[in-house]
């Protein structure tokens, strides 16, 4: 469990000093549903502080290594959840995806990771980062395990405690093996030519396209004209909502409280100054600025307009195709400290962010090891809203297309962790 998911009896720190000792008195709906389905909670997984980051380097407490190369990051912000599955420590894990925080670490760690449609999994009990962007989803080593977990997460349908949740109680396994014959898979040419996309990742997407074609699907070019605006819109909406959601951490009711202050204002300021790390401060300051009067009209309104336009692009695209095939990240896992400029880090989410902007589902599926880096590479599939089960069917087709001779997935437990009992039966 990513450590922003509340579970009674455990600390829920969000990898922040602010919540270092915080124990939630209640359990998140998504966690409760998996407990009800018979899952055993193994532990809390490291993350970027309050999910701000793409490498898990922003954790206030621990360093999480990529099981495939411990000199490298596992991706983020759900780096701990991805690494735990890649190392065979857990069969499935839960993360949260606000801008790619499941799909990107899944790709870096060579596991399957899914961001369901916004509203499919209840957000009740999930410490909020960007309320209109956040979505909880699972990591697994096979698409089938992922679909099973989705069944658990959606069992019971609409959560009365989350007004934005939908009734998505469908059997994600029912058509998993139906194949993709006669289906249509979209490729966005502009995304395949984007600056920064490494050849090995590009190659894996092209290879996936041709294997899906061999499996009976038709490859169709589609266009998402306003995708350029996605990162800009995301870095308005995300920080604005984060500023608002993190305002509650003031040290009054719970969390870190600076001792010895003589006024409320001083206590609030000093508790927050000590409790939050650099990236958390950066995002909140940006959000506070973007929401301030005079500024709000220019940015927030424009960002909402961009969201509408991008959503319309996707709608049009999904009239032509069942899913869109694209890279999950421009490159494979990078080294610790390699991306020190935050804007460079932000660009590593270029392929994932647009989906959070519109709310549609997406999934990362590993296809093997990169020819240049030898690190896990994979593809991303994006689907129409509430087409989660169908998306899993395509993901299964990709998995099968890259499977070994006896049908085993392209990647197993990372080599350094192999033979320690984490392999699937």
């Amino acid at each position: 469990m990513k450590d922003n998911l509340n579970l009674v009896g455990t600390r829920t720190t969000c990898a922040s000093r602010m919540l270092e000792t915080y124990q939630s008195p209640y359990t998140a709906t998504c966690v409760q549903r998996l407990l009800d389905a018979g899952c055993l909670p193994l532990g809390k997984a490291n993350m970027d502080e309050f999910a701000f980051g793409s490498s898990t380097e922003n954790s206030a407490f621990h360093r999480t290594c990529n099981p495939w190369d411990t000199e490298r990051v596992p991706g983020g912000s759900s780096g701990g959840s991805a690494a735990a599955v890649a190392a065979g420590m857990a069969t499935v894990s839960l993360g949260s995806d606000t801008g790619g925080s499941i799909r990107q670490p899944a790709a870096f760690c060579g596991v399957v990771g899914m961001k369901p449609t916004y509203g499919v999994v209840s957000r009740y009990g999930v410490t909020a980062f960007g309320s209109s962007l956040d979505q909880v989803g699972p990591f697994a080593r096979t698409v089938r395990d992922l679909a099973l977990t989705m069944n658990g997460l959606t069992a019971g349908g609409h959560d009365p405690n989350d007004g934005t949740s939908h009734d998505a109680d469908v059997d994600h396994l029912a058509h998993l093996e139906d194949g993709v014959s006669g289906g249509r898979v979209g490729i966005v040419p502009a995304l395949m030519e984007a600056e920064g996309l490494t050849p090995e990742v590009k190659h894996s997407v092209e290879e996936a396209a041709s294997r899906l074609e061999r499996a009976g699907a038709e490859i169709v070019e589609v266009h998402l004209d306003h995708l350029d605006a996605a990162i800009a819109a995301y870095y308005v909406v995300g920080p604005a909502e984060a500023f608002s959601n993190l305002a509650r951490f003031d040290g009054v009711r719970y969390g870190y409280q600076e001792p010895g202050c003589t006024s409320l204002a001083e206590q609030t300021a000093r508790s927050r100054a000590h409790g939050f790390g650099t990236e958390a401060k950066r995002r909140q300051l940006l959000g506070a600025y973007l929401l301030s009067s005079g500024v709000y009209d220019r940015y927030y309104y424009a960002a909402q307009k961009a969201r509408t336009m991008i959503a319309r692009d996707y709608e049009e695209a999904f009239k032509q195709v069942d899913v869109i095939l694209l890279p999950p990240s421009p490159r494979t896992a990078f080294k610790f400290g390699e991306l020190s400029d935050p804007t460079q880090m932000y660009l590593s989410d270029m392929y994932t962010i647009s989906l959070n902007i519109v709310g549609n589902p997406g999934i990362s599926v590993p296809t093997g090891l990169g020819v240049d880096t030898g690190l896990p590479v994979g593809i991303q599939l994006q689907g129409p809203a509430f087409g989660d089960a169908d998306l899993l069917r395509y993901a299964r087709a990709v998995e099968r297309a890259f499977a070994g001779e006896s049908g085993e997935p392209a990647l197993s437990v990372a080599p350094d962790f192999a033979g320690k009992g984490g392999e699937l039966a």
Partner: protein
Amino acid sequence: MKELAQVLEDWEAVIGLEIHTELTELETKMFCGCKLSHDDEPNAHVCPVCLGLPGALPVPNRRAIESIVKAGLATNCQIQRHSMFYRKHYFYPDMSKNFQTTQGPIAFCMHGHLDLEVTGRGAAERPAHAFGEAEARSLASASANAVGLSTQMSAGLPEGAPVSGTHHLGMAAYDTDALTLPERHEDGSYTAPIRILRIHMEEDAAKMTHVGGEEGRITSAAESLIDYNRCGTPLIELVTEPDLRTPEEARLFMEKLRRIFLTLGISDCSMEHGSMRCDGNVSLRRRGETRLGTKTELKNLNSFKSLHDGLAYEICRQAEVLEEGGIIYQETRHWEPSRKRTVVMRVKETADDYRLFPDPDLTPFDLSEEFIARCADELPELPDARRARFEAELGIKRADAEQIAGDPTLAAFFEGAAAGSTGKLAQTVANLVVNELTGYLRSAGLDLAASGITPEQVASLAKLLAADAISSNQAHEVFAAMAETGEDPERIVDERGMRQVSDTDALQAFVDQVLAAFPDQAQQYRDGNQKVIGFLVGQCMKVSKGTGNPRLFNELLRQALS
């Protein structure tokens, strides 16, 4: 300082009100299932949602939306089919999330109005020359400027709306020319239409108690205690246009609104306990001037008297400052009823930046026509309509009809007691309800239900009175006995031998006896001293041992002496 009447000769006071009403009649809070309570142990009714714990999410209370829609319908507002909740940010521990969930530029209810009937001495607060054309001009300009009542809303924009100065305040849609202006009647009374800008839905804050230090303020307190029971209580805020011109109008508006909300059954509207609270914005300008002066905001107007007196003081204070060539600062002032003055709470140098934006956890509302129609169907008879019916159908005097109709419990009781009666009997019931019943409840400190007094008892007492079987003074005694013992008035009257003799033949004997005993006084009356009749009636009452009807004695004496 000058008197209010003197000030208002030369100055026009421009007043707007912001009225917060807790929806105390609901069972649960606005966004969670916690029970609403006033007097329970502190922090007994809290949960992850109203405590703002990480991961908690709001779920709107449907009944609260029904309540505000009814409030809007009852105040002639346009119910907005599409509206949403916004987050209003400020760091203070009374709001557990450090933002308040409230509404943005579009509230559930927009652009309503109430007509105020201002009569008697209160009507004289508006000088005779403050009617007519100059007033028309100033009313229109006041609305165009909106006195900055909604500056806190300027950060929010409806999705898809063009960025413009007035549109997002919803002002452009309102046609000021169509307004009916107050017209003065011959007796000095007038009807003033007061426009309502909006009624929006929000959540109340927690209650803080500052221990130690002066005046219960946080700045000097040794410690501050927070009770989150109240945090998340559904609250509706009504904002008027700055159409009020006198403290009396402000008081009447508040009274009228309170009667409507009580009748709707959405709140106990207790100003004493803070479930209905009012802030006043007031500025002055010379009569005939169309630009607005700088306003001050008044707090702690927690009774009708405070609302009136606080505004009256502030108007006089501003006039004094302005007449001495001084400047009014835009500031928040606190009314001190004991010292009868307002003092500065804080100066607003810059507008607060609340960083309003649409709450992403609450999907926008699209109220269906069916939902609104159902709310309209469920509206009870409103005080004005009920008052008019009492007047027209039962023949009750206007003032009594108004008082009874404005209190739903009293009105229901009255309707029970007056069932089947009209004219004199109905008015007698009204008199008993207005004078005896409310007087008794006030002095006994009881509410109607707890008193055990039944409409049947009052009906029975009214019949005795209307038939002249007892006098008004006796009725007062019977009422007290009836309230205490729960017995029927008939029985009390009989047991105490109070039944008044209204048989003129029987009374004539006492009259003859008295006139024989006091020939001098009888002669004085014949000589033109009318006052002496009182003495003679008193003697008749004495010899009849109080059983005679004094009004009949009076008539019989006059007949005998004419």
